[in-house]
């Protein structure tokens, strides 16, 4: 499964999101690759099954053939675990 973590620039926020998502996916035993990417690349990409992003950016990604999961607190692994398992398990 391919997941993309999306932020405006693709170097800060999305990288943090990718790191913590990978931790949670391993714990959940879900086999997935997570790529950090910027908004522009994400809009052109149609290969991801799931998009991880922030509530502010989510409206800009509507219309892509991917499920969008929004994360508010990036260091709260419980939030990530809850949202990822609800959607992927």
């Amino acid at each position, binding site marked *: 499964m391919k997941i993309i973590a999306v*932020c*405006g*620039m*693709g*170097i*800060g*926020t999305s*990288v*943090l999101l990718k*790191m*913590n998502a990978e931790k949670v996916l391993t714990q959940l035993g879900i086999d997935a690759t997570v790529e950090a990417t910027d*908004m522009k690349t994400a809009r052109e990409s149609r290969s991801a099954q799931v998009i991880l*992003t*922030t*509530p*502010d*950016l989510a409206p800009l990604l509507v219309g892509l053939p991917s499920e969008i999961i929004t994360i*508010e*607190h*990036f*260091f*709260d*692994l419980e939030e990530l675990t809850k949202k990822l398992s609800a959607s992927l398990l």
Partner: protein
Amino acid sequence: MLAEAFGENSIRVLAAALDREHAIELAGDLLVASGRVTPEYTTAMVEVLDTHGPYFVIAPGIALAHAKPAESVLATGLSLVTLAEPIVFGNQANDPVKLVFGLCAVNHESHIQMLGELSTLLSNNESVNILLNAGDTEQIRSLF
């Protein structure tokens, strides 16, 4: 690694910010002061807010201000300004902001390990409390 990522003069405590743009500029000024970026990068950090909104407020009270790798980045690094009075950034989930980190990277790889260590630090509530309540930069440096 974090100890080197935060260069000399890259941390300031209890600064007074007028608004969210000013808070970002303070974090950018510290990247300039520590020799990691030129002032153009600070301008680019503020433009990210104008273009994409306050999405980079990534946890309650914590913003990670940054722009893209560009010529204005001299070396990969971090800065931190703690605010005397919290500032509303317009991020519903995580407002108001008390800690503004500045991030600059020369490319898409150089900062990954550094961000991993920052993530570990900010996942620890005790460390975050020390950052929020620090009265001098030494208290912050003791965490690295």
